[in-house]
């Protein structure tokens, strides 16, 4: 799966979690600017587990990994 494809799926999932339109979510927007809080972040991690079969809750995810959807997609791509 390419990084672009991962980004597309993340945008789809985050749009559903945040009740926003997909077109309003840019790949370079920081997560905290998307209105995501603790619960929203956990929902994103659950989405990632279901979509990519990757459990990230125990890993040392840093702010840098969640800097943007693009950086998260890069992190996921390395793990796949």
């Amino acid at each position, binding site marked *: 799966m390419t990084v672009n494809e991962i980004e597309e799926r993340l945008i789809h999932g985050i749009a559903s979690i945040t*009740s*926003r*339109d997909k077109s309003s979510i840019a790949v370079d927007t920081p*997560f*905290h600017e998307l*209105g*995501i*809080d*603790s*619960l*929203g*972040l*956990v*929902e994103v*991690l*659950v989405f990632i*587990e279901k979509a990519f079969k990757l459990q990230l*809750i125990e890993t040392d*995810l*840093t*702010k840098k990994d*969640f800097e943007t959807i693009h950086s998260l997609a890069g992190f996921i791509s390395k793990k796949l």
Partner: protein
Amino acid sequence: MSFASSLSENKYYLSGSDWVISALDYTMKKATSSGNMSQVVFELGCKIDRTLFENHLRGFAEELPVLCGKIARNIYNLAPYWRIPKNTKGGAGIEAHHVKNPSKAMLLLEKSANRRFKNENEHVWFNFISTDKQKTFLSMAFDHRLLDARGAEMFLNLFQQYLAAGNNPRILEGIRLSAPSGLSDWMRKFYAGRNVNRRFIALSRMAPDGLPLPFGKGMGFKFKIIAFDTDKTKLIYDNAYREAGYLMEMPYLLAVVIQGISSLFKKRGLPVSNFLIPVSIDIRACEDTKQELFFNHVSYLFFQINSDSMNNLKGTINSIKQQMYEQVKAGFPKDLAEASFLTRIAPRSVLGKLLRLPFKGKTASFIFSHVGKNSYLSSEFMQGKVENVFHMPRVPVPPGIGFFFNYFKGRLNLSISYLEGLLQDEEVAGLEADIKQRLAHVQHDE
């Protein structure tokens, strides 16, 4: 003429969450001085013209007959709904007070947080407190049956928009005042109920610890408001990032409160085996806030922390995060919201008793919530600067104590709400000092 029109014969069918809140209102009226209500407080850094405010408020409230509604049951299908009158005068009363010093306002705010609504048609009222200094306190007491915490802030946000638009009632177009009866998809509701039941059975293996309740009925609630400034708030959020991870403020705040309460138990010589904490979460699905302004759009996560991990902050945080992940992955909050539709057949008096059954007469060790994003979006109210916004919720009894965090424009607030007589003044002071020290400790690099 009202622009906030109902589509279905002035009926808003109550959801399961609404009905549970309503049952709690019933039990709280029996056990304490008032029902399930809360108060949102604006601290304004200016004087406000009270008469002008009253006039604006009257016009705004007249556009919203939902403020004067009451609960009724459909005689054919028995589903409970909020009956909205066709038109109304009033709907949001106001009382005014004056204090010389702003520091004296808290006593009045505490009194207004406990004042029972005058009748079954009053659900919102305002307390206007002017001072000799350039400061005004404006509180809105609201019935939780009509508004949840976020809805209350959204309501005031809408009021500010109404004022900014020159009192134009068109700003109220689009408010949803009807909801389907929810009398369908029974299999989905029953499966959800089965899942919820299984989780409650697992949680109820040990009765949760709670503070002993004081004797007597008709007691009010007392409040301790801790307002952190922007520097302290930044320090707290930095600590949360370091201890709990990116965007994990809620687990961090909850873990600190757990440690604080555990410490209080030990000072009293009370045994500590496990705490059960329900945490309310917002489940609004619409980007348009007017669609879900009124009534309750919340579900809950339930956290159970054993005494083994209470002293270890990291361990407590990890346990909270793991439980959060597991409940979200299992779809528990959605199942709880869906299953609670099944409770609507029960009268409120019966449901109030049923809510205590799973946990052997107790409902929780304490209540907790964290509203990380304010819904009052303006920095002004009636052209005056809003310095702070905080909440003063009453809490179901048991447990009779709750911790409520909210964030407003770079400042974190903590409101500790407790039944009169549950805590001594020294214990509250100790708890405040303990929580402040744990939250905003300065990490020294080794």
